């Protein structure tokens, strides 16, 4: 099945549990610095935003990699790193438009989201579904229906107001 990590930023309360469980699973240590997912937090505004790898179809990291270490895993449609080939040149970090390729200075490796073999731990622990792992085909269905409903509501209201006038 073709699934994608969906972010609902309005549900994020910046508890940063996702970062902690991500590093715990991948690096056997709890260290947000080594997490593949990043919560961008603006402490003074009371806002948080989960930043995840978009697993791009035409991934700049993959295109730029000089040793073809970045490949697409067909089963998960995820962009993966072959550590046998990776030379750690950090070109991928330079070109990723989202800043979601990381250099882990602890292990001295390039790290990125690998979707945890299809069971993302961040999704499991997220308390409020700010993160979901959903079928690509269903990705926009919910939003489309919600958007249409809002529009319908608005139109009905306008029409009835006009009629009253």
């Amino acid at each position, binding site marked *: 099945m073709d699934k994608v990590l969906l972010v609902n930023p309005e549900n994020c309360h910046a508890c*940063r549990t996702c970062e902690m469980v991500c590093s715990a699973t991948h690096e056997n240590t709890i*260290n947000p610095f080594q997490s593949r997912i990043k919560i961008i937090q603006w402490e003074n505004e009371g806002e948080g935003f989960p930043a995840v790898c978009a697993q791009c179809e035409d991934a700049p990291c993959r295109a730029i990699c000089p040793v073809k270490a970045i490949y697409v895993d067909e089963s998960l449609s995820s962009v993966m790193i072959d550590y046998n080939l990776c030379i750690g040149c950090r070109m991928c970090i330079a070109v990723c438009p989202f800043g979601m390729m990381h250099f882990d200075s*602890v292990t001295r490796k390039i790290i990125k989201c690998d979707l945890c073999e299809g069971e993302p731990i961040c999704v499991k622990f997220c308390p409020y579904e700010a993160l979901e792992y959903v079928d690509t085909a269903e990705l926009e269905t919910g939003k489309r229906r919600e958007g249409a409903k809002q529009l319908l509501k608005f139109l009905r209201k306008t029409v009835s107001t006009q009629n009253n006038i």
Partner: protein
Amino acid sequence: MFGWSGKILRIDLTEHKASIEPTQLYSERFIGGRGINLKVIFDEVDPHTKPFDPENRLLFGPGVLGGTCAPTASRMQVTAVGPSGFVTSSGIGGRIGNEIKYAGFDNIIVQGKSDTPVYINIRDDIIEFKDAVHLWGKDPRKTQEIIKDEIGDPETQIMCIGPAGEKLVSFSCILTGMYSAAGHGGYGAIMGSKNLKAIAVRGKKGVKIAKMAEFLNACYVMRNDIMENPVCKAVIDSGGRTTAPEAVRAGLAPMGNLENTLWDESIAKELDAKGNEFWKRYRVSSIGCAGCPMHHYYVFDVPGIGLGAPKCAAWAEFAWPLKNTDYNFMFKVGMLCNEYGIDFTSTARSISFLSELYHRGIITENDTDGIAMRSGDKDAIIAMIHKIGTQEGCGRIFQNGVVGAAEQIGRGAEEFALNIKGVEMFSSELRPFKAMALAYAVLQINVDGMVIMEPGMGKPKEEAEKLALQLCGAREAADLATYKKKGMLVSALEERVGVVELLGVCKWYMLYLTPFLELPVKLYSLATGIDAAEEDLFIAARRMRTLAKAINISRGLTRKDDALPDRLFGNPVSGGIFKGATLDKCEFQKMIDDYYTACGWEKDGIPQESTFHALGLSAEWKTFKRRMSREMQNG
């Protein structure tokens, strides 16, 4: 080490030097968090050291589970001999404690005094002392912004003091982010006395866990337990807007300077309506402390006031103590307190104290720079907070809190300075709740309002009795009105609160969700690889209690200080669901006897020698005995 980072950072502000010590010196007996903080104070701060002396220590302890994904485990303990002269401790949330753990430190000890204002920048092992002259006088939010810019790292976590802390106001706080603070107890003033404006931390080391897979599973179980708990659900659904009306309904809301409890269902309804409206109009988001699924901090954007997230105490302390139901006003007062870096509870107590004096004719507007301190007068309240925060004019009388203000005013004002051991009292009705009343009086280092939760509060009788039986072996302790067995109950609950403070788990979990700590203790075992039973941590909590008592006894604390303001005795509750309830002075003293017995202390509150030995504190007993005999010789 697993769970622990293994290192304690010592910062000497006099010498501008940092050094490292192994956590293992302390962790076996004192675990972490508040436990280690207290042991360091016991060892290093002489009983004659005054709160603002450079020799006083300010300690930060994130706790063993701090920095991990253990749910709610981001409460760092801030401990010091406070401006009151006694050792106290308070929690601070947000993400600062986690970051300290990630930088590789279990605790931070701050000592000495810098010649000029500084802030400390911690990047893993690199500790820098940076000039803070340009930050002096800045509010906490601006301070954090400037430091982030200067360091060039927006992900840095910062805790700092506001202008009131610099001016040594005895109820100034240490704040982090836009919402969380070590509020009650005056740690801001201790930091200010050391010329330390802020501590900025960024860590990239992380926390190692002994049994990671099992640890994650247990975290998941605890997370689900929290999220399925009806209390948690109610809080999340209401978004905190029910704090005030529910407290009124529960009979917890004494008005003004704890003068009377008159607010009833009609006021609760008014608060419901106004709260709903305020939330609907102005709420922007809500934010949680690190690792907490409860996202307790509600962010509002109110035109003309600004963007902010005063903690939930704003909806209590600025409601009934200030006789006010206007949420815009509560928000404004909360923002103002955060700007100066002063504690909500103490501020509300100071204002209500002045109002009572004004209405009794003890003071007039001549005493308060022309401000008539009429009860509930919004302009007067705002003007007075400015004066306290800036320490200008009559605001200066509050430098040493309500106790200091009463001394300066004289004319019998002392009677109305409601405090416990020199710290302003929390605005909660205590008379109907015997165990809670006892806890407020005797729990020496927990100066904040969240002290204990009685089994009998808000639970059906049968359930409450079962809980009381499990907690202290006595069903009757569930009865709110009885004085019997309450000493044992408070002692048992204090131990449980102690455990969460050793681990860095939020007290909220223990107070409002469940008093049973199997899960946090299991997480402690899995994180550290030490196979611990609940009892092991209870013993550590008892050590902490005994040590704190010993510190305070050698600083002059006596049984007389384990007391509540006279106002609470004799006079019955004047309204609400507990109308008529009283607190009896004689019975209250018997409860204190029972509590001391449960703790293994003498009638005068001094821990017995056998208690020290039984807890493995024989070396500490020798130190304590030596200090006490020195006091005796000095007369």
